[in-house]
């Protein structure tokens, strides 16, 4: 849905629409439009202003959450946070001038966007040494991608897949995790059946869930179980017999080569390892292969609903309404299981831009770290340091806590992780090569907290600025320490 094309007045007809189709009224947009225009003007006005003036203007910008996403700049910033890792002031400006459809389109059609600048700056991972790259190098490499990419949705989807189709450094090597990460990037918005078939043969996955040792006559249930419980239908849609039978279907694949350099191993199908007997799976009987099992699982409604729920919860808000899940599951099934079609639909729903969605997610440590580095700047060493700083915040890239991935949401926040999130913000702000009042003001309004904070937060920032009139980095830190910034 394109909100800019929406009918100006709510009618009984629009009221009866499902909530993601209900347009926001023009009147509601106009009511808060003045604040939006004000924000754009202020970004200019602030150049050269001092901290006191900035905070005086913040007071004027404070307004109710309910109308926040009616403001074109806030909508753009919201989309850039959710579809990526937060926008710069320029990016917010560029998207704010577009219609909702064009905004979403510009993020979705990233194949047309060159990532040459990023590619030129990324370190070359040493994939030739016998030991392979070390974990820190791969983590820093990915974090740098998140910060510098010109295709934010590509990286965000890669993070999504890493959290759903998990593998981890507790079993797979860093080189293998790197190879898997590139697979997720390449197939970020692909058809789900194609992605699952590829992941089933991905070396990191084969090691993580033991497909590599799954042999005819000696089945290993690990991958078959998690494929159903976590990757497709979810629990309650299969039996223990389905687990045992599909484990037989995934026999035959193993890893070859790489005796010296383990991460260069390739998956290979060895016919004599394959259990060619009849299997009965989900009420069907045949000489099924692993690909056949994927083709049985992906069309199931439970798979469509589960993946739709996961995607919407990742991008918009948790516990989506059943009608939203139903709609997205239809999109998934009607598009031959195309993930890009579902994501496109999410970014066009009014629910995505509703008050319920605004700041309704906790920033994951990856999101928090990447957005902080985008705001404060980073050099090569900073990426490694920041990747390490994510551990006490509760997320180590390539090292999910278990095969279910990070639980996310409320679990990101406890007393220890929150202190570490604030300490990281301080360290980053103190290192930032900037912090003129104008830049601080720009951070505050355009990129970090949408110029939209509670009166209490504004009072706290003013109290800080009054006590530390020259501490620009401190004010940047305090802005990132606000509860508003901790949310996404």
């Amino acid at each position: 849905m394109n909100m800019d094309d929406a009918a100006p007045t709510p009618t009984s007809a629009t009221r009866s629409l499902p909530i993601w189709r209900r347009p926001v009224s023009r009147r509601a947009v106009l009511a808060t439009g003045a604040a939006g225009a004000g924000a754009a003007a202020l970004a200019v006005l602030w150049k050269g202003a001092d901290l006191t003036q900035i905070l005086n203007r913040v007071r004027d910008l404070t307004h109710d959450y309910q109308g926040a996403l009616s403001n074109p700049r806030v909508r753009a910033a919201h989309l850039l946070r959710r579809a990526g890792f937060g926008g710069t002031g320029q990016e917010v400006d560029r998207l704010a001038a577009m219609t909702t459809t064009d905004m979403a389109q510009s993020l979705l059609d990233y194949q047309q966007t060159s990532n040459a600048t990023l590619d030129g700056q990324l370190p070359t991972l040493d994939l030739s040494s016998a030991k392979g790259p070390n974990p820190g190098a791969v983590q820093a490499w990915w974090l740098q991608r998140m910060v510098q990419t010109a295709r934010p949705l590509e990286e965000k989807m890669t993070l999504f897949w890493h959290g759903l189709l998990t593998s981890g450094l507790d079993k797979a090597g860093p080189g293998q995790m790197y190879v898997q990460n590139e697979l997720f990037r390449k197939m970020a918005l692909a058809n789900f059946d194609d992605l699952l078939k590829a992941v089933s043969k991905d070396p990191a996955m084969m090691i993580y869930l033991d497909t590599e040792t799954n042999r005819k006559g000696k089945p290993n249930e690990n991958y078959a179980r998690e494929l159903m419980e976590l990757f497709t239908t979810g629990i309650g849609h299969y039996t223990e017999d389905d687990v045992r039978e599909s484990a037989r279907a995934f026999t035959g694949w193993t890893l070859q080569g790489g005796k010296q350099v383990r991460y260069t191993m390739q998956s290979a199908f060895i016919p004599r390892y394959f259990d060619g007997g009849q299997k009965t799976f989900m009420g069907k009987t045949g000489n099924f292969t692993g690909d056949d099992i994927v083709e049985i699982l992906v069309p199931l409604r439970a798979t469509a609903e589960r993946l739709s729920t996961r995607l919407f919860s990742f991008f918009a808000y948790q516990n989506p309404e059943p009608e939203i899940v139903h709609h997205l599951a239809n999109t998934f099934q009607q598009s031959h299981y195309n993930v890009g079609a579902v994501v496109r639909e999410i970014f066009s729903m009014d629910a995505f831009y509703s008050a319920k969605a605004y700041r309704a997610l906790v920033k994951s440590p990856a999101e928090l770290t990447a957005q902080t580095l985008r705001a404060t700047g980073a050099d090569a060493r900073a990426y490694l340091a920041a990747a390490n700083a994510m551990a006490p915040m509760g997320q180590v890239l390539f090292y999910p806590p278990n095969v279910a991935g990070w639980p996310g949401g409320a679990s990101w926040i406890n007393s220890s992780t929150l202190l570490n999130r604030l300490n990281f913000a301080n360290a980053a702000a103190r290192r930032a090569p900037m912090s003129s009042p104008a830049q601080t003001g720009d951070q505050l309004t355009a990129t970090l907290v949408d110029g939209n904070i509670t009166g209490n937060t504004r009072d706290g920032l003013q109290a800080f600025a009054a006590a530390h009139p020259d501490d620009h980095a401190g004010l940047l830190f305090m802005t990132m320490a606000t509860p508003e910034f901790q949310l996404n």
Partner: protein
Amino acid sequence: MFSRRDFMKQGLLPVFAGSAVPSIFANGLAAAAADSPQATPNGRILVLVQLAGGNDGLNTLIPFQDGAYHDARPTLRQDTGVLTLNNQLGLHPNLKGLKASWDAGQLAIVQGVGYPSPNLSHFASMSIWETASVQGGIGDGWLGRYLNYLDKVGESPNHALEGVSAGSLVPPELRSKTPVTALQSLSTFRLQPVNEHGTQVDVENPLMKFYGAFKTAGPAPFGALLDTTLQEALQASHALQATDATYQPKATYPAKSPIASSLKLVAETIVSGLGVRVAHVTLGGFDNHAREKPVHDKLLLGRDQAVAAFMQDLAGHGYGDKVLVMTWSEFGRRVKENGSAGTDHGTAAPMFLLGAPVKGGLYGQQPSLADLDNGNLKFTTDFRSVYASVLQGYLNAPASELLGGNYEILPLLKA
């Protein structure tokens, strides 16, 4: 030992006396003064060690005389070095510390622990154990309910260190409205608002302005969580800083061992005297579907050495009779090994309770290897019976109320 009143005198008051301290801490201070581990009748501490992934019970408490065990485990069976407990059962050779506790009468082993209609999903089964409900789900954890009970009867230390876990996530067992803390280290558990010149900048007053009303002014569903968590974090970190950081371990913990580091951190927190009531550490890696033996052997060795050091450390600090350690895992493994020299998900497994409070011995009944359910052991003791025994027999808490049902009390613990 360092009493709560001592640290009040020595450290806490100067920290809290300044006008810069938000008023919420005044409440915590008053509450803390009224309470100390020594002053309450129930200063007992329960430490859970989670063996995540599904520990192979049959290769932990080994039925070494049972031919069916040897038949089912052609490559994984322990043929030599089993630490015999009687003429049927013995501990894995790497559990020498546990064996020493057994010999000292300080190890209780409950055999065949599980629950009806076993769930072979890691996450469903963990959730069942964590909530003590066969429905599982996202409700309060069973120890969260215990902390709520302490609150209700006025035995809570009133800060978030009454329940601690080592790591960055709060385990679901401790989940409830009562705040608890996930810890990575005590020394970094504090705000460090140092500026470019190395000077501490006062940020707590503005932070309290941001967060103090975010419960109502912030957005659903996480505004309230941020508000309360920040307050709890500052309160707990102040309490910690007010203690003298003079913990010296009275045991040598194994180096380069995450489980040892976790238990050492728990020991340090307990010894700080702030009133830890329940603690949780996790040792992962037990989901041994392939090439199990070297991995499992190493995990058991690491767990044994770390727990032995922990018990020695606490005893050295005078906490020996106040701490009970209990291990749990979401399930055991399939009786018959699979073709990858590993084991798939199974059901019943033994639980271990360790420390001066236990009455050493074997409890319950070893499941039969000849009478299986789809290749899996049939449980003989419900895990909630073990929980009930600990809640009632050790923590003096109303087990039936906290578990939502009556379970047999096993005589695992001294009065």
